[in-house]
């Protein structure tokens, strides 16, 4: 049986983990490679790096981090942040990323999803959607949540699937950082409509939220950052609880 994936996400800026990873005795908590290795040992099913480096010139630092991580961790690695062209994708894949997450560029230019999936295969193209609720539904925001687009995330997710996305990473901006749980209503609407897997993101505060994301939201994978980084919950605790609730997880 296919297992629900538990994915820790590390925000990386200029080659350093921001917000820190405090849960284990890391020599250097800011080193993404060391944090990745710790998550590898802790039983994470995949890993996600989100590059929040402001300038594009510092790309080589990220590529080096990806390369060094791929040398140590034999699990799927998704890298996102500032991916604008097929050349950006190629450099990340050549450095050892398995999947590349595209956010703003996919939304402002949906044809990029098609070009990218044609060039590299759907399996490595993740479309990241940041959504926020409004009066009568939800709206997609781009540029790190600053720019409203007027686009409906449910319809756009379907369009991304048809254009060749292999997976959707859905982040609820209303919930991100609140620890109130995933937006399971939006998740459910999207997972019901799509054939491709959806990763839930934004708002996890406890293990019950993860269970809700899977059971109510229909997520194929769950992504979380701070609860893992600060050691509030370990990956093993999550998996034990999920297993107890009858959900399939990799032991």
């Amino acid at each position, binding site marked *: 049986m*296919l297992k629900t994936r538990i994915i820790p996400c590390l925000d990386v800026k200029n080659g350093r983990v921001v917000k820190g990873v405090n849960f284990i005795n890391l020599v250097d908590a800011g080193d993404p490679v060391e944090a990745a290795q710790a998550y590898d040992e802790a039983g994470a099913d995949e890993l996600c790096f989100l590059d929040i480096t402001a300038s594009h010139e510092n790309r080589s630092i990220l590529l080096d981090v990806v390369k060094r991580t791929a040398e140590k961790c034999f*699990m799927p690695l998704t890298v996102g942040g500032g991916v604008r062209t097929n050349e950006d994708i190629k450099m990340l894949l050549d450095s*050892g990323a398995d999947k590349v997450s595209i956010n703003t560029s996919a939304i402002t230019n949906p044809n990029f999803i098609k070009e990218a999936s044609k060039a590299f*295969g759907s399996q*490595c193209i993740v479309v990241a959607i940041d959504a926020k609720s409004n009066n009568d539904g939800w709206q997609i925001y781009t540029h790190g949540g600053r720019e409203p687009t007027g686009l409906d995330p449910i319809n756009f997710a379907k369009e991304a699937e048809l254009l060749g996305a292999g997976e959707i990473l859905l982040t609820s901006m209303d919930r991100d950082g609140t620890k109130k749980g995933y937006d399971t209503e939006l998740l459910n609407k999207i997972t019901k409509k799509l054939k*491709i897997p959806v990763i839930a993101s934004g708002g996890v505060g406890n293990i019950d939220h993860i269970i809700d994301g899977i059971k109510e939201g229909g997520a194929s994978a769950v992504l979380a950052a701070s609860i893992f980084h600060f050691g509030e919950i370990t990956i093993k605790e999550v998996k034990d609880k999920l297993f107890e609730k009858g959900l399939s997880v990799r032991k």
Partner: protein
Amino acid sequence: MSNVDIAIINYECGNIHSARKAFELALSELNISGNVYVTNEPEVIFKADKLVLPGVGAFPECFNKLKSIKGLRESIAERVYDNGIPILGICIGLQLMADKGYENIESEGLGWISGSVENLCPDDKSLKIPHMGWNEVSFKKDDGNFSDLNGEDFYFVHSYYFNANNNDNILATTNYNQPFPSALIKNNIIGTQFHPEKSQRSGVEFIKRFLMWKP
């Protein structure tokens, strides 16, 4: 075994960085000396003791790329068929060994293991395609080498599967609503639908068994 040289065949179909690293780790854990080459050169393939045909992407494009590199397909076939060198196909690398593929268009394959590559079509329509993530691999028979990994989880990402014509070639199956062949074997040829190079400990253990394998 004193020295084992491994050639990972690079035909521009996907990331092989992790495959190289995983094979290097497996060699070192087995205390075997050897080199891991990422190559498309027939000379290197002729020197290697084990071959790996990796790959991600779409079947027709990957097969065209493999064919387009001068002398590559012929040198692999000579090593595998005339010299009996073990080869491991991974994901598309396994699928290319079929007679035919039906991804996007009908296209020919290497024809090494009888069967065709068809789309995964689970009866339960709520199941997601691609089949992406960790799933159990059940070995069909005790082969005294790979089969002690029975029941381990490996990492998959695919929308098509190898529909084998001969049950004898099915080494292992995996369940996604219905069982599909997840590892195939024929003489010195073995292939996995899953990615051992992405499957953490169980993956490295699988690669070690491939390196120790004496078909």
